[in-house]
């Protein structure tokens, strides 16, 4: 039986892709412990990967002196993840839709779309350096194929 005690932690990570391996393993393991479905685990894994790579590559520009702060809380109903980088920030509305026109053939620019498609809530802070994401247990995200970017 799943424990009622929330699982939560805050970790400060170096700006390199491999920094996510261990916290990601802990979060996915906690989701399973809390009885989240395999679809939930896939969705959170994907959103985590995309958000962290955005923070490291586009936020901190791979600058090892800058950190990414990852905060998560998992209870019996939902997982909430906050991620903050030390970059210049961005406006999500400036990101072109990767499904439109020639963007479809560009190798990059799909991370934000996937985060929005797989999480019930994905909201950037006003300065564009922090992201808050929520996914509820065993609740499919509606209209995934029509998800917007803004």
């Amino acid at each position, binding site marked *: 039986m799943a424990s009622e005690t929330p699982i939560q932690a805050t970790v400060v990570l170096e700006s*390199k*892709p*491999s920094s*996510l*391996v261990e916290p990601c393993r802990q979060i996915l393991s906690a989701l399973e412990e809390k009885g989240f479905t395999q*679809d939930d685990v*896939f969705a959170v*894994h*994907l959103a985590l*990967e*995309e958000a962290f*790579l955005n923070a490291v590559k586009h936020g901190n520009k791979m600058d090892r002196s800058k950190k990414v702060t990852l905060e998560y809380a998992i209870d019996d109903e939902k997982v909430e993840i906050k991620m903050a980088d030390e970059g210049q920030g961005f406006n999500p509305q400036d990101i072109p839709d*990767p*499904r439109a026109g020639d963007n*479809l*053939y*560009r*190798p*990059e620019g*799909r*991370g934000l*779309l*996937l985060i929005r*498609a797989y999480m019930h809530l994905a909201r950037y802070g006003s300065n564009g350096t922090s992201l808050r994401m929520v996914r509820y247990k065993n609740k499919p995200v509606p209209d*995934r*194929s029509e*998800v917007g970017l803004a």
Partner: protein
Amino acid sequence: MAAIQPRISVEYSKDATVVSFTDEKILEETDMRSVRTAIEAVIEQASSIRLVLDFRHVKFLSSAVLGLLIRISKRIYEQGGQLRLCNIHPGIYEVFKITRLTSVFDICEDVDSAVESLSDGR
């Protein structure tokens, strides 16, 4: 230290080259460079390769892999080759659908149908 694994396996069927990803998860941090290098080495072996990418073992990938596939696809078609993807796990197919890459890649059910479609020149 992380184990060094072969990231792909290569087989030949009729006049097609079938590359299978051997990992269950393809992640940016550990796998992308080695996968890219391995596939590029295969592509370089023929000027107009007929390549099938078999995803039967893959249960998870990120958008970085989608970017890699687009780069590979461009390179193959520039060289007069053809590309098919096959055996894509339903969860991953959903990622292709959301990003509308189902309209960019020729996706087949399995290796046989992928090889057959290449032979037909469809």
